[in-house]
């Protein structure tokens, strides 16, 4: 994975601290061209991985990337599925089985329901595989070396102790997409323990990691302990804690942590993209110099 991954929150009006900024962003990124312009700006300064949710609007972005193979030959997308609000709003309206019926392609589920036959475990896993495939459709022909399960689903399954389902996600991603499975979570220590106990070694886990401990469940110390002592490919997100920490200080903290393979961030303006990157480069270099000196 690249050291720095470009995120998509800014494109879909996800702002963790301000509803006003969210609205301004949805106005700024109303068109696909506006999104592409920012993606290209980021690409021009070396951000070749776009980590994005399987939002409906990504379909058009994928079309553009597919149509310009030369320009995006080195470009990678890390899909994060599902776009949870789509399902959450559907569940509110249609209920759980209504939502599955609406979003699972084909009539696999319909026939199970109609037949009234007992649902055996295999059917649930194939149902989940079908839903993964439906989410992955938009990325056909695009390089997606790592595919993530969004935190709402990861953490839901984690709390429900559905360890087998987490494993099934991994297997399907590896087998069908020849890609690495990844997990986004708000509960890094617990998830790491569960995954490794189930034989998923060196798991790719993306979680909030920041100097003020925001969205780091349990404690910041528990997270630092995992980074220090456990094997895994860790990605830090929400490193600025939604803007609560000044960028320089935030990134100095992240670059000083052991075992962070990648840093995920999103930004709307060229200025913010460049300044965040330059902080990461500067503090990485400083770490390297210190390490070599000792």
């Amino acid at each position, binding site marked *: 994975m690249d050291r720095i991954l470009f995120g998509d929150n800014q494109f*879909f*009006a*996800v*702002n*963790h*601290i*301000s*509803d*006003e900024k*969210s*609205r301004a962003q*949805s106005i700024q990124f109303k068109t696909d061209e506006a999104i592409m312009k920012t993606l290209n700006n980021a690409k021009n300064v070396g951000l070749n991985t776009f980590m994005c949710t399987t939002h409906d609007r990504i379909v058009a972005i994928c079309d553009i990337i597919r149509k310009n193979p030369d320009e995006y030959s080195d470009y990678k997308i890390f899909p994060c599925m599902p776009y949870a*609000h789509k399902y*959450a*709003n559907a*569940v*509110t*309206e*249609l*209920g*759980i*089985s*209504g939502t*599955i019926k609406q979003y699972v392609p084909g009539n696999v589920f319909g026939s199970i*329901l109609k037949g009234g036959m*007992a*649902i055996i*475990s295999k059917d*649930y896993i194939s149902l989940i595989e079908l839903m993964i495939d439906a989410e992955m459709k938009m990325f056909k022909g695009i390089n997606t070396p790592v595919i993530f399960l969004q935190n*709402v689903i990861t*953490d*839901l*399954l*984690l*709390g*429900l*102790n*559905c360890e*087998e*389902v987490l494993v099934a996600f991994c297997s399907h991603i590896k087998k069908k997409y020849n890609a690495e499975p990844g997990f986004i979570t*708000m*509960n890094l220590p*617990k998830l790491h323990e569960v995954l490794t106990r189930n034989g998923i070694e060196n798991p790719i886990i993306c979680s909030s990691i920041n100097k*003020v*401990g*925001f*969205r*780091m*469940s*349990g*404690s910041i110390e528990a997270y630092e302990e995992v980074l220090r002592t456990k094997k895994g490919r860790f990605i830090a997100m929400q490193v600025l*804690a*939604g*803007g*609560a920490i000044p960028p320089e200080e935030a990134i100095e903290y992240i670059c000083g942590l052991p075992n962070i393979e990648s840093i995920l961030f999103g930004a709307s303006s060229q200025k913010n993209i460049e300044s965040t990157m330059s902080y990461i480069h500067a503090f990485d270099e400083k770490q390297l110099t210190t390490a070599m000196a000792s």
Partner: protein
Amino acid sequence: MIKVALVGAGKMGVSHLSILGAHPDVEMVGVCDTSKIVTNFLERYSKMDCYADFTKMLDKAKPDAVFVAVPTKFHHQIIKIALERNIHVFAEKPFCLNTAEGKELVDLAAKKSLVNQVGYHNKFVGTFKEVKRIIKSGMLGDVYHFVAESYGPVVTKPKQSSWRSKPEEGGGCLMDYASHVIDLVNDIISPITQVKGATLKSIYSNTVEDAVYSVMNTTDNVSGILSVNWSEETYRKMSTTVTILGSKGKIISDANEMKLYLKDETKDYTKGWNVKYITDLTDQVNFNLRGEEYSAQIDYFVDAVLKRKPNNVNTFQQAMQTDKVIELIKQHR
């Protein structure tokens, strides 16, 4: 350690189940739902004991506490059964279909000294907690007016399908969405006791209202405007904002950001505008599913059952106050 059972494994129920499943002081002893798809999944993958009959579950699982997340029309019946068996109850919002039902449960819970809580999670959101603290401390002076708003994209096209579209079952924007905002105002300002006018508007739904607009007053004679619309697709998810005006300042707060304007400096805040973010105001939780507040309210309930905390946030009594305001608004239908 307490034994907990849950009835109603829909959206909120499953979310509660996950948080309960990760809770160190909770042993899940049973889940009751009528949907085979859901219970088969939970039996197979979560290794939970599932039931289709509520009383059977209580007989067999013998829980200390039960989470009730069934459609509102069943709340009264289900909660009553649990309380009669001396089981502590956490119920989803809104509390009941009317205050007659609610009153019976409030009295029963009191008589039996059982812990009772309703899932109005805004009370566990850091920014709103701080708003309440500021108002109760008198920092805003005499509060005289509020604007309480909530918008989100629940019903954005003409389609009817679930109990949420049936007014007699607790569906509609008033009971489902506006209840959150009403409950928040009741708590952070003072209980709403008068509804001077209200418009319940259907936008896409045929049978229920999609928006509620109302002019109201609280016990302290604070005037207010309520504006709630669940057919608002310019919002990605439910977004609640309160604006509160007082003789010494003003607050504008949502779940992420609190802006406070003060005429004079106080111990905690400076003169003029102050901004605080949820990052400054959130307490750490042990397990986070989709926001700290959902875990925090369950932690609070478990602590109350274990007698580590008093049972005075989101009680049945307080939730019934909210049902009362809903009744007042309905009179203007």
